Every structure is written in structure tokens, then in C-alpha cells.
């Protein structure tokens, strides 16, 4: 994974090269130019750099021009889709080794521009047409959750406090300083009830993973993890056509699929990276993933269950909230964090004896979702 943050003077392709180089270096016995047979690159928006075809561009800058290179787009789950596509490629037997990753360069644009570009991942004829922003969509889900279950703004702010604490232990995180509950609560509203500190960061960054057929993995690296469950689902894009405003059906379906494939239960998961594009989204993820009953997420964060040292540490990387959210890079950056955790390389934020970890990546306001389950060792 590249350093996440404000990467002035660099283009997306250059940041992607940084992440690709690290992925290659973690596979010391791999000859990338000869053995990587395809590249899948998550990238949400051409608007940021006026640049399409990021699949080919990123592959080229990683030194791999010539291989099939495809951009995957599912808004904030674009690289979750790249990971899933890579899994299709190797598990189908079509390729032995592929590179999956994602990239976004965002910070050179104004907040108003970024707000506009991100809103493109919501429904145009009803949501965008009525001035409903991305924070606005999650805010409406939060309002409904507060009304139904009594979830509070303080509980949402507690997610920000936790994730900033975790981010302070991650040298690659965009923001590496702790915040207080008061700071979070005192920040200005972006879309009531969501405040500035409820929102993830506008960040530049890239992330990459090398995927190989399970029986070949040991040939390229001594240290690797296994993907044992993969689920992906979709939903109608506009909130008003959904049955529930307090959960994401796509995430629930993807989770069910991944748990079934991996033959594990939510209670078996020891570390999770979930899609906290907004603090409320992390709370909803606890429920959609079965970490707590519906309506129980507020208590779960309040009790410290998802903090480092708790029963199930969530977003040890700092999450989208503190590590940052270069949208196209997020899905594989989550997988990178659980790779570090499962191989004992997470440094100050290492959770002891982790064997089973999960990633949860959501596109937009939930029209796409991917859940992956990883196991340590071979």
C-alpha cells in the first residue's frame, strides 16, 4: 500500500506504482514481468485527473504493459470489485497469478468538486436531482436508525475517536493523531446529524495485492494469507426504492455468501476492516455483518468492543476515517491491513494470534458490496 495522505505533485498512476512495487517486494520469488498475467484496478472517477482507462495506465506504470488490464468501478467498492475479479480469474483456472489493486488521486480538487464527483455514485434522476449529497444519503440512514433504535450522535462520534486512535498507530495513515469526543461532537454539520468528524477523509493513495492460485502461493512468497470466503451483491441504487433504510441489503447478502463459502460464523471473526465512509456506516456494518443484533451497534461501540484490546477490533488501520479514503484504493487497502494482521506485521496495532479476518467494502450508499474472509497461513 502506498502512503495515504495528501500526495502533492503526483498523479494516480505514480502512486499506484508505489503500491505495486511494495506488493512485488512482498513476493520475493515472483518475477512480475513474466508471471503476473492480468491486472485489475479499482478506480472510481475519471473526473479527478481527467483520465479514463486507469486499468491500462496503472498496469503500464507498474511495469506490466502488455498484460490484460481492466478497470473495475463500483464507486467506493471499486477495488473490492478488483479483488473479486482477480479471484474469478485465478479460481477459474484462467490465470495463475494476477495483480489486483486500486487508486484515487483526490486532494488536488476542492471540497465542492469532490462532493460533486462522489455524488455521481448516487442515483441521478431523483437523489442528485434533488441536491442529496453522499453524506446526505448516509445521514438519512442515520436519522432513521436513531429514530428506530435510539442510536446517538455521541455513539457515532465514538467511532471517529476509536478510528483516529487506531490511525495514530499506522505510519501510512492520512491522519495519525488522536481526537477527543468533544472535538468530534463540536465539529460543524456536513449533513445533519453527520458532522465533519463523522466523514471519512479526502485522500490520495493506492493499494495492491498479488493473488495466486492457492496451491501456487508458496512458490512466490513465504508469507501469505488465504482468501477463504468471497461475497458480492448489489441493490437498487436509490434509497427510496429499498425496503430498509437502517441496513444495507447488499452487504447482508455479500456477508452471508462469504460466511457460507468460508464455513465460519460472525463470532469466529477476530479482526475486521469495515467500510466506515461515515461513522454511522461502521455502526450499520456491525449489524449487517452479524457482529451484533440489529440496533445493537451503538452499545457495541460504547462498550469498546471494537477498539484495539476489545472483543473484535474493527478498523485497526484507522479505517476510511483516519487512514483515509482514496475511494478506488479502499477495498484492497482493507485486504492489505488484514494481510498485515494475519501475518503478524501490523506493528503497534498488532492484534495477538489473529487467524481469521474479514473485510467489508461498500459502493456508494449500498448499491454494491463485497465481503471477503481471510485466514492466516497456508
Amino acid at each position, binding site marked *: 500500500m502506498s502512503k495515504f495522505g495528501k500526495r502533492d505533485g503526483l498523479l494516480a498512476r505514480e502512486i499506484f506504482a508505489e503500491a505495486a512495487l511494495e506488493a512485488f517486494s512482498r513476493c520475493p520469488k515472483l518475477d512480475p514481468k513474466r508471471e503476473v498475467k492480468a491486472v485489475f484496478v479499482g478506480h472510481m472517477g475519471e473526473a479527478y485527473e481527467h483520465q479514463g482507462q486507469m486499468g491500462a495506465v496503472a498496469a503500464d506504470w507498474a511495469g506490466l504493459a502488455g498484460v490484460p488490464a481492466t478497470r473495475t468501478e463500483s464507486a467506493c467498492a471499486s477495488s473490492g470489485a478488483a479483488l473479486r475479479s482477480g479471484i474469478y480469474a485465478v479460481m477459474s483456472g484462467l490465470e495463475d497469478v494476477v495483480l489486483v489493486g486500486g487508486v484515487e488521486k483526490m486532494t488536488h480538487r476542492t471540497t465542492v468538486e469532490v462532493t460533486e464527483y462522489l455524488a455521481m455514485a448516487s442515483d441521478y434522476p431523483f437523489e442528485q436531482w434533488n441536491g442529496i449529497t453522499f453524506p*446526505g444519503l448516509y445521514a438519512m440512514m442515520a*436519522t432513521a436508525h436513531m429514530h428506530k433504535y435510539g442510536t446517538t450522535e455521541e455513539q457515532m462520534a465514538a467511532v471517529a475517536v476509536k478510528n483516529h486512535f487506531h490511525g495514530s498507530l499506522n505510519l501510512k495513515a492520512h491522519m495519525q493523531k488522536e481526537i477527543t469526543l468533544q472535538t468530534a461532537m463540536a465539529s460543524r454539520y*456536513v*449533513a445533519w446529524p453527520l458532522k465533519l468528524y463523522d466523514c471519512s477523509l479526502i485522500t490520495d493513495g493506492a493499494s495492491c495485492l498479488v493473488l495466486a492460485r492457492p496451491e501456487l502461493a508458496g512458490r512466490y512468497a513465504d508469507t501469505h494469507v488465504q482468501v477463504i470466503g468471497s461475497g458480492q451483491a448489489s441493490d437498487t441504487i436509490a434509497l427510496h426504492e429499498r425496503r430498509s*433504510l437502517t441496513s444495507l441489503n447488499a452487504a447482508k447478502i455479500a456477508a452471508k455468501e462469504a460466511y457460507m463459502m468460508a464455513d465460519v460464523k460472525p463470532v469466529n471473526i477476530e479482526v475486521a476492516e469495515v467500510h466506515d465512509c461515515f461513522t454511522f456506516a461502521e455502526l450499520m456494518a456491525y449489524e449487517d455483518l452479524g457482529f451484533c443484533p440489529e440496533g445493537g451497534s451503538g452499545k457495541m461501540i460504547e462498550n469498546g468492543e471494537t477498539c484495539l484490546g476489545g472483543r473484535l477490533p474493527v478498523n485497526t488501520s484507522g479505517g476510511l476515517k483516519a487512514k483515509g479514503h482514496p475511494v478506488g484504493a479502499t477495498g484492497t487497502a482493507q485486504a492489505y491491513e488484514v494481510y498485515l494482521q494475519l501475518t503478524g506485521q501490523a506493528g503497534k496495532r498488532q492484534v495477538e494470534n489473529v487467524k481469521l479476518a474479514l473485510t467489508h467494502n461498500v459502493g456508494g450508499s449500498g448499491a454494491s458490496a463485497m465481503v471477503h474472509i481471510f485466514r492466516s497461513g497456508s
Partner: protein
Amino acid sequence: MSTQEPFTIEQFYRFLQQQKLMAAKCLKCGKIHLPPRPLCDNCLSQEFEWVSLSGTGKLVTYTVIHVAPQQFEALVPYAVGIVQLEDGLQIPGMINGVTREQLKIGMGLTLDFGSCSTSQHWPKWSRYCFKPVTT
């Protein structure tokens, strides 16, 4: 009621311009679609009829937008929400004439037909919003 108009989002907005809130009812399974679709997502039928909807309903959820895209920047802060119409269908929209403190889930709202977009570019759709039901 005409059955000649195509079951498209464009046509939904054309009806709005005529101050009519219309949805497409599947002739096979009865599901009502707002907006209309070319294929019923319940039974894949392509046979529909237009049905007229009541423009009143109750607020299901809401937010107040403080950071907006350029096009809406002049309006901030503005309230938006999802309204469940008397027919059970839901539609999102701006809510005018209320402060954040006055917004309550379950409050009665009614549709206000706005003007059509005067933009030279696509889309030339009508604007609409909701306002509190005055009793």
C-alpha cells in the same frame, strides 16, 4: 388516463410538469413502480399502466445538507427527506418551509410542483419539493 406514453423517467417528469404525480403499475403482478421501469423488477413483465398518485404522505427520514454541490450551494442549509406517499410508495425530495427542529419523522408533507428546468442542456426535467401539510 392515457396508456400511450412510454414508461420512462423522462415521461415521469413530463407528467410532473403537468402537475401530475404518476407511477407505473405492472399489469401482471400489480407492483407499482416509482419511477417507472421498462421491466418489472418483480416479474419481468413489460406491460404497465399509468396510475395517478396522491401527492401527500409522511416523512420517513430526513437530513439537512450543509455542504452541497456547486449547483445547490446557494440554497444551504436545506432539508431533504424521503416521503412515503399515502399509496405506500416512497419518493425523495427537498422539504421547504421548515427548520431542522420542526422536522419530525412521521410528519405530514405534501408535494409542491415546481418549475421546469430552464437549462439548455440535458436534462430538462421539472423540479418538485415537499412542504408541511397545513391543517
